[in-house]
């Protein structure tokens, strides 16, 4: 339960219900969680909070997830933060697009939470 060891995650999700749910589950898993509700907020929070990892929903207002991922990977200060894309689109092309945009991994909704934790830990360790 306390695998998170206080590592800081940035959770970007515009759907309030889903954001709240995931935030609580990550907190329970022992992580520190900061949230953002749109793409611009996500980039601001990355700079302000310097999280260890970002969980990035793709369908976001203002700037979508692909754009956030691209901007982050071209920014010297933000490049080192690993990104896991979260999307309700389940097509193979979406997965490829996530990796092309600079995301490090990819998870589809509905989220398989234990699997997501494994992905988070893998990226945090590397």
């Amino acid at each position: 339960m306390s695998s998170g060891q206080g590592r800081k995650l940035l959770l970007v999700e515009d759907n309030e219900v889903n954001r709240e749910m995931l935030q609580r589950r990550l907190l329970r898993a022992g992580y520190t969680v900061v949230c953002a509700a749109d793409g611009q907020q996500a980039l601001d929070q990355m700079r302000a909070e310097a999280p260890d990892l970002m969980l990035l929903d793709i369908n976001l207002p203002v700037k979508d997830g692909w754009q956030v991922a691209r901007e982050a990977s071209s920014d010297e200060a933000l490049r080192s933060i690993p990104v896991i894309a979260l999307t309700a689109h389940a097509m193979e092309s979406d997965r490829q697009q996530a990796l092309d945009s600079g995301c490090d991994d990819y998870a589809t909704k509905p989220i398989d939470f234990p699997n997501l934790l494994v992905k988070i830990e893998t990226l945090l360790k590397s």
Partner: protein
Amino acid sequence: MSLKPKSLSLRARLYLFSVAILTLFAVNVATHLWGSFARSESLVAYRDAAAAAQLVNDLEQGLESARQQVLVLATLRETTDDPLGDAERETAMADLALLEQRLQRLGALAGEATDDYYRRLFDSANALLGEWETFYSNYNRPDAAVSVESPIRYNDTRQKLEELDQRQEFLAIQRSSTIDGTIRLTDRITVIGFVTTIAVTMLLVILLIRSANSSLLRLKTGVQRFGSGDLSYRIDENRDAGEIRDLARTFNDMSGKLATAIDEVNSAKADADAANAAKSMFLANVSHELRTPLNAIIGYSEMLQDELGDAGEMDRDQFHHDLGTIILSGRQLLGLINEILDLSKIDTGKMQINLEDLAPMPLAVQVCDALSPLLAQRDNRLELDLADEQDISMFSDAGKLQQIVTILFSNACKFTENGLIKVSARAEDNWLLLAVADEGIGMTPEQQGRVFETFEQAESSTGVKYGGTGLGLAIVRDFCTMLGGDISLSSAPGQGSRFTVRLPLTGPVSNPEAA
């Protein structure tokens, strides 16, 4: 290439060509006949001239021998008294008659041009012959004086004969040279005509071949271009006439019809492709829309399960709230599934309508009340303008009317932020006019044309930004049609949208399913 046959039909050109050749042929034949006629004329003239010359010669000799005989007899008469025998005299008279006969034949051969010469000869010769006849008839009469020694008359006749002969010869030469000239001329004309005929025939053949060839080449070029797919190409119809132009026109018509047919096929294909693309997009959107509430349902359920396993007292209020979220997400999912189902029913013609007497105003109020949480999501305000006639009633399908208002109201809330949403309804003539207006993002005319189509949203990215499957307005439009009414839209980008539904108060007429 400025020759006239360009504008003639092929048949006319062939006719013209044949007529030209036949004319040339006729000219040749006529020239030849003229030449032949001249040749025969010349032959006749030569023969006449030869006959005349022969006669002159004979006459000369006859006269000579007759004179000799007369001179001999005259000498004999002076020296002897021998009378002239009857037989002898007869012979001499016959000779003279023969000479006279020849003289007359010469006269028959003499033309107008030698008439004067002949008349002078005739007078002179007649006198001479008369003298000799008198000599013979008076020979045996001793008293009669016989004087024939004088050569004057004879010489005169000889001279006249000489003159006629010369004249005839001169005329014959003159005439034959004229005829020879004619023969040479006709020969030349025949040769020139023949060569000209060959040259003109070849020229006409070449022109005909070239013009026919260029016409056919234009047709061939056109057909080749049609064949290679260039259906906008047109064969120049005005360069030809008659059957070639008809053929060009027919080819052009054919190409036009082909182009139309291909356009139709292409547009049908484009429509089918667009429909397929819309369906794929729809499936992706449906998948996305189903996964979002499912994510909440599964996530919350798993989380509650985990929390139940935790030690210590659980927060009952939190637990209650979380279950509420699960239920809400489940209902959202159900609504979505119902929408898809509705559309499928409409598509397959299985959608039932249940007509009843209903009061539209309270129904609209009810829906707006029920959906008030949606207003709060984006800080929107609601203005209800449902006229004073709260008690008007109509014969329609309450469930469908409710769904229409729900969808329009949800859309207004979805696309408007911090604005006013106005729901108004009134009865006019025999119609219920229900309008939902917002102050949201609005639509371009092009988007307005598409927004009622199944699976379509104003933009394909709308589903990403605002959610939804592009089914709501398609369902509303179909419901309005089923209830005997229609829906109209006025909107501009950034100016908000206003949807107006028009439904008959007396229910859909002429719809057998309504009963």
